[in-house]
C-alpha cells in the first residue's frame, strides 16, 4: 500500500478556502492540459467522433471506473458492474418513459433518474453483501454468476423487463430545451459525468475511508485487529461503485436510446473487465484510457480488418490480442507502460502516485488474507 497521498501530516492550513485552494493546487498540470483539450474537442471534430468515440468511451469508462475502484482500491474484482449499469438503465426505462408504454410508469425524468441510481446501487450492495465473504477467484465467479442470472432473467421476464426486446425510445429529457442525444450536448454531458466520477474516485481514495479500504485490501486481518469491520468497508465500497456504474448505465441507455438483455450479456460484462485491465486497473484514469482504446478498436478495426481481407467479426480477436499483450507485458495496463517508459522520455514526469501498491501485486489477491484466520508463524 504505497498510498501516502492522504498525508495526515501535511501542513495545509485548516481554514476552508485555503484547503480548497490546496486541493486545486494538487491537481497536476497534465490534468489541466487534458481537461482543456477535452473541452475543446468538439471544436475540431465531427458528430461521429464526439458521440461514437468520445461519448461512448466516457460512458464505458465510467462503468469500468466502478470496477477499477473495487478492484484497485478494494482488491475485489467484480464482474457485476455492467449488470449494475443495466439495472439502472432498465430502471430509467421502467420508471420513466419508453416506447413500451404498458410497462413504463412515466414518472418525471428526475424521479426516474434518482430511482435508477437507487436501484442500481441497491443491486450492487446486495451483490457485494454476497460477494464480500468470498475472495479472489470466488469473487469473480459469484459476481459472474449474478451477472449471467440477471441476463437470463431479463430475457425471460416480460412483465417487468419486457423480455428479449427490452425497451426502445428511452431518451434523455429535453432539459433547457437541449436535445441531449445530439452529439455535442451528449459529449459534454458524458464528459461531465466521467470527470465527476473520476474526481470523486480520487477524492474518496485519498480520504480516510479510502485509506481504510486499501488497508482492508492489503491486510484484512490486521484491519480487523485494529477495530475495522472488514466486510462493512467492502460493502460500502460496493455502494460507491454502484453509484458510479448506475450513472454510467443511465448514460448508456440514453445514448443507445434502448436497453435489452444484450446490454448486459456476458460479452459486455467481460468487456468492462477487459477495459479496466487494458487501461490499468490500479489507476482511475486507466478506466478511461482502456475505454478509449476499446472503442477505437471496435470502431476502426472493422475497416482495418477488411483492408486485410479478414472478416470484420474478428475485431474481438484484435481486442483479445491487445488484452493478452498488455497483460503479458504490463500488468498495470497502458498506464503501467506509460509509467515505465514515460520517465525516460520526460525526466521529471510526475510518476503515478494514484492508488499505488507494491509492484507485482495483482488485484484480488491479498497476501495478508489467509484461510480460517491462519496462524502467524
Amino acid at each position, binding site marked *: 500500500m504505497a498510498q501516502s497521498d492522504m498525508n495526515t501530516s501535511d501542513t495545509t492550513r485548516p481554514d476552508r478556502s485555503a484547503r480548497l485552494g490546496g486541493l486545486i493546487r494538487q491537481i497536476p498540470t497534465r490534468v489541466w492540459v487534458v481537461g482543456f483539450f477535452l473541452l475543446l474537442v468538439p471544436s475540431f471534430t465531427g458528430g461521429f467522433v464526439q458521440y461514437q468515440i468520445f461519448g461512448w468511451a466516457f460512458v464505458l469508462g465510467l462503468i469500468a471506473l466502478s470496477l477499477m475502484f473495487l478492484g484497485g482500491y478494494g482488491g475485489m474484482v467484480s464482474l457485476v458492474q455492467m449488470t449494475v449499469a443495466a439495472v439502472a438503465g432498465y430502471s430509467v426505462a421502467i420508471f420513466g418513459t419508453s416506447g413500451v408504454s404498458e410497462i413504463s410508469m412515466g414518472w418525471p425524468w428526475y424521479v426516474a433518474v434518482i430511482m435508477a441510481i437507487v436501484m442500481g446501487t441497491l443491486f450492487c450492495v446486495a451483490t457485494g453483501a454476497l460477494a464480500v465473504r468470498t475472495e479472489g477467484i470466488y469473487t469473480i465467479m459469484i459476481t459472474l454468476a449474478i451477472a449471467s442470472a440477471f441476463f437470463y432473467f431479463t430475457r425471460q421476464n416480460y412483465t417487468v423487463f419486457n423480455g428479449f426486446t427490452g425497451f426502445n425510445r428511452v431518451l434523455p429529457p429535453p432539459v433547457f430545451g437541449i436535445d441531449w442525444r445530439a452529439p455535442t450536448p451528449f459529449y459534454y454531458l458524458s464528459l461531465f459525468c466521467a470527470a465527476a466520477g473520476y474526481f470523486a474516485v480520487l477524492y474518496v481514495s485519498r480520504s480516510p475511508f479510502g485509506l481504510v479500504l486499501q488497508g482492508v485490501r492489503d*491486510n484484512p486481518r490486521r484491519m480487523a485487529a485494529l477495530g475495522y469491520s472488514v466486510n462493512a468497508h467492502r460493502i460500502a465500497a460496493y455502494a460507491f461503485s454502484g453509484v458510479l456504474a448506475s450513472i454510467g448505465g443511465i448514460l448508456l441507455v440514453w445514448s443507445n436510446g434502448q436497453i435489452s438483455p444484450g446490454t448486459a450479456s456476458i460479452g459486455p460484462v467481460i468487456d468492462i473487465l477487459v477495459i479496466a485491465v487494458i487501461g490499468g486497473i490500479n489507476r482511475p484514469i486507466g478506466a478511461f484510457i482502456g475505454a478509449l482504446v476499446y472503442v477505437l478498436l471496435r470502431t476502426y478495426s472493422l475497416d482495418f480488418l477488411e483492408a486485410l481481407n479478414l472478416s470484420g467479426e474478428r475485431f474481438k480477436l484484435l481486442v483479445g490480442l491487445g488484452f493478452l499483450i498488455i497483460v503479458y507485458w504490463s500488468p498495470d495496463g497502458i498506464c503501467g507502460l506509460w509509467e515505465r517508459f514515460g520517465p525516460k522520455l520526460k525526466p521529471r514526469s510526475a510518476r503515478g502516485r494514484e492508488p499505488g501498491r507494491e509492484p507485482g501485486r495483482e488485484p484480488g489477491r491479498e497476501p495478508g488474507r489467509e484461510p480460517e484466520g491462519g496462524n502467524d508463524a
Partner: protein
Amino acid sequence: MMLDPPQKGDEIGNEYALELKGVSKQFGALNALSDINIRIKPGERRAVLGSNGAGKTTLFNCITGDFPPSAGKVLFFGEDVTEFPAHERIRRGLRRTYQISLLFNGLSVHDNVYLACRGVSRGRFSLRRPHPGDALVQAADGLIAIANLENVRDVMVSDLSYGQQRQLEIALALAGAPRLVLLDEPAAGLSPSERKELISILNRLPEHMGYVIIEHDMDVALRVADRVTMMHNGRIFKEGTPQEIENDPEVQALYLGGGHE
C-alpha cells in the same frame, strides 16, 4: 484450576479483565489448545511462557477472534465475546500485536498509527481528510512518542529497522483506550539495547492497562510481569508469581534446564 486469591483489581465488581473457560482449539487432529482456563484481573501484567508450538499464539488468536475456539468461552470484562468478530472485541478495549509484524509497509509510521487510532474511534467511514490539528492525528503523534519513534514519524514502514517495526506493532496496539493488550513475543529478535528499550516502554505504560506478554526469554518475562503462566502442549502447565515459576523444579526440568524441545 484454583481460584486466584483476591488481589488488586477485585474492587471493580469482582470482574476479570479476561476469563477463559475451557477453551480448546483443534486443527484437524491436532489439539493446539485443550481446556484452557485463565483469569486475568484488570491492570494485571501476565507473562505466558512455553516452548515452540505450545499453543501460545493460538491462544491469542482465540482471545482476539482472529479465529474462533473449537470449544469454550471467552469473557472480556464479564461480557461473553466468544461469538464476536475480532473488530467488536477490539472496540471493547482488547488489543494485540503479532508475532510476525503485520504492518502497512507502503504507509508512513504516522499513517499506520493514524489508522489504528481511527479504527477504535468514530468516523471509520469518514470522507474528510484530517488536518494537522485533528484529534486523531495528535493521538497518533502521542503514541509515536510513547513508542520512541518520533525520529522516523514520516518514514515508510518498509524502510524501518526490524526493531522499529516491532515498536510500531506496539504503538498500533496502544491506540484508543486499551484495557488489555496481548503482546506476542515483542522482544523476539531484538538486540540487547532494543530489548531494554522495549522493557522501558512496557514499564512506562499506565497502571490500569493490563497486558499479556508471550516471551521466550525468562529474564525479560520476569521483569515485566506480575504473574506467569506456563504452557505446554496446548495445556496450562503451571501458574504463579515469577519467583514461584522460576523456582519450580518441574518447570526447571521442562523449560529452563531442558531447553526447547
